[in-house]
């Protein structure tokens, strides 16, 4: 789990994951989207790969990157859980305000 959070702690890496969810991209196609070197993007992809957020497959001269939906879903679940925290808070606020009547 620690690797997953470290991998998602960076906005470029989160952006790469989102791009790779809808369809697979080559590392060079991904690199074209960011104001950083090919090597830097490659490094980000390696961190994501270690966290199982993406898989990489060699095809010809290109490295194709695809998001691992199951792992991404886990991250999404975190936000779902945080939403539940706030829903419970709203319930408690409603109870406190109801005491006024």
């Amino acid at each position, binding site marked *: 789990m620690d690797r997953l959070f470290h991998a998602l*702690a960076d906005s470029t890496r989160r952006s790469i994951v989102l791009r790779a969810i809808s369809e697979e991209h080559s590392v060079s196609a991904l690199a074209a989207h960011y104001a950083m070197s090919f090597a830097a993007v490659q490094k980000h992809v390696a961190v994501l790969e270690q966290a199982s957020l993406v898989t990489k497959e060699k095809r010809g001269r290109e490295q194709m990157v695809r998001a691992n939906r199951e792992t991404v879903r886990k991250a999404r679940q975190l*936000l779902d859980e*945080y939403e539940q925290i*706030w829903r419970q808070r*709203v319930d408690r606020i409603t109870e406190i305000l109801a005491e006024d009547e």
Partner: protein
Amino acid sequence: MAVISTEKDLEALSLTIVAEFDAAVERVWQIWEDPRQLERWWGPPTWPATFDKHEFREGGSSSYFMTGPEGEKSRGWWKFTAIDSPRRLEFNDGFADESGAPTGEMGETHAVVILEEVEAGRTRMTVASSFESAEQLQQMIEMGMEEGLKEAMGQIDEILGERASV
């Protein structure tokens, strides 16, 4: 239903929740301003919050701790970056060490709270929270949720299986 809508942004690690209450704006403002009311709802019954400092003014800070089921304490701090009574409140929220000093670990959450009158005696509250890191989000969840509900959520997720959208 008090909760009107929620919106999650995975890329920005943010959550926006909109809720409405049958109370005047000034009354809803008090649940943020008064630490005794705030600690009744900020933490869940299993991790109640205690605010030992609450300087509710721009530039002011708060210090609080949450007490877990085994008596373990987790400290946090708030720093108010904007207060426009009784309509708008912005603050940063982070973890603190035993003395209440910010640890700087896991980043900060920035929260923007907006209160609006929908009609006389009815208030809409919008809370937008954004996280710096997923680690911090995870930590918040561990302290903020009742175990039972967490399990229930996991079970629901299993039943629903793979979601079409992520």
